């Protein structure tokens, strides 16, 4: 499971003073570019994901909508979300977004995880769960600004898209990219994907989508899964894609200042108590009062 990739730039519950092996930290950042405007909603990516990663979700129920399964699960790392949108001209648009882990540059899951090494970030930007170290607390779910990780009810461990880190390691693209029949999902260096996106956005603007744009939210330091959207000004239209995702301030307080402050305060109380005892001495019952009691006893005995 633990590949000796030696390009791990971040490791959960580990101080930057004791970094993980990262001698190969020169690697280029990669990105998956999902062009929502070209997606036909075939769900080939869902099938490819399930096949390559060899996971079989329960066959669910028809909920009366195209989304199937209706949500990400521990065994469905990507799902297509279908949203109907009526544009200004009254025309129907079907906004189909392939949902899954965004592989944030500043991952809220990794920040929240209390288990050393259960979540790692590679130099190429992939955020990967190391399931054998996962303790099942669900803090990654609490920390994620995109509501992606899911706890598996069978083994109580968290799962999500790995961006096919195993395929990437041997120079292949993620399986969803490989399978996409319309080329809506592309993969390459992040820089290249931005160039591809630029062309697509330019094209869309020429075709009347004035607000077309790239979704690479800076609130989480940018992501390694990016979208080309026709309505980049309103990402919420795409089944609630957050407009300005960021690690919640509550999570930042919890996993930020609270940790060193509380640890120092507790150390202060412990040392303060010790030195109080050493400098002030114990609070003994005074000899005077003991003698008073003894005198009373003698008095009573008479």
């Amino acid at each position, binding site marked *: 499971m633990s590949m000796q990739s030696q390009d791990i730039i971040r490791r959960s*519950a580990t*101080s930057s003073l004791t970094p993980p092996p990262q001698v190969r930290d020169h690697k280029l950042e990669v990105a998956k570019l999902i062009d929502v405007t070209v997606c036909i909603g075939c769900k080939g990516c869902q099938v490819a994901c399930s096949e390559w990663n060899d996971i079989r979700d329960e066959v669910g129920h028809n909920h009366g909508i195209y989304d199937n399964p209706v949500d990400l699960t521990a065994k469905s790392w990507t799902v297509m979300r279908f949203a109907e949108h009526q544009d200004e001209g009254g025309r129907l648009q079907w906004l189909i977004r392939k949902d899954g882990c965004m592989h944030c540059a500043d991952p809220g899951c990794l920040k929240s995880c*209390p288990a050393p090494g259960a979540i790692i970030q590679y130099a190429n930007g992939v955020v990967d769960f190391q399931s054998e170290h996962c303790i099942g*607390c669900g803090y990654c779910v609490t920390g994620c600004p995109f509501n992606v990780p899911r706890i598996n009810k069978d083994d109580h461990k968290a799962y999500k898209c790995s961006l096919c880190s195993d395929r990437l390691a041997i120079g292949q693209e993620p399986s969803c990219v490989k399978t996409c029949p319309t080329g809506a999902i592309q993969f390459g260096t992040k820089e290249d994907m931005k160039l591809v996106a630029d062309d697509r956005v330019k094209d869309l603007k020429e075709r009347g989508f004035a607000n077309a744009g790239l979704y690479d939210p800076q609130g989480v330091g940018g992501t390694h899964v990016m979208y080309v959207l026709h309505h980049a000004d309103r990402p919420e239209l795409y089944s609630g894609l957050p407009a300005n995702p960021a690690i919640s301030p*509550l999570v930042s307080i919890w996993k930020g200042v609270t940790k060193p402050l509380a640890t120092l305060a*507790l150390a202060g109380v412990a040392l303060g108590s010790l030195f109080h005892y050493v400098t*002030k001495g114990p609070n003994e019952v005074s000899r005077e*009062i003991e003698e*008073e*009691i003894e005198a009373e006893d003698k008095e009573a005995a008479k």
Partner: protein
Amino acid sequence: MIRDPKDLKRYNASERANHWLIGISFILLALSGLAFFHPAFFPLTQFFGGPVWARILHPYIGVVMALAFLIIFFRFKHLNKMTPADKEWLAKAKNMVDGNDHDMPEQGKYNGGQKVMFWALAVCMLLMTVSGLLIWRAWFGFDITLVRLGAVVHAAAGAVMIGLIMVHVYAAIWVKGTIRAMWYGTVTRAWAKQHHRGWYRQVTGK
């Protein structure tokens, strides 16, 4: 060793057992909780059979502590009502800490500091219980904002509570003759007369 039959009974067996149930669960909770709170304490999970066991057991131990605390809360609540003498004691607490307790006002079964401790721990316990339920994913699935709030409150209140208990334990070590009350329930008359003269008068009729 036969103790002085004239020693004063401070806690009965049931109260002592109740206190120890809280004490044991607190220690287990603090060790496992610190492990999840800060990576520096993560090795403490080994006391529980590894990190996964620590994660599984922690909330159940929390339920035990919350229930045991609730019982002791109602047992001792009436003894912890703040009085003007307590406020005076608190105003002079610095002298006490400096080691000079000669001019401290007369105190009942509990002094002002102990009463502040009682209420502070009660508030922490309430916060810990509510926030703990919010983040207990094995059984509950609350709204994400509530879970995040729960996580911060649980961490902060937990740290405060551990600090308070450290003070509580240290005070018992510092004031000689106190710890026996927790073990077998009695204190000497001299101890009571010095530290809790009001209570001493009440139980001895002097």
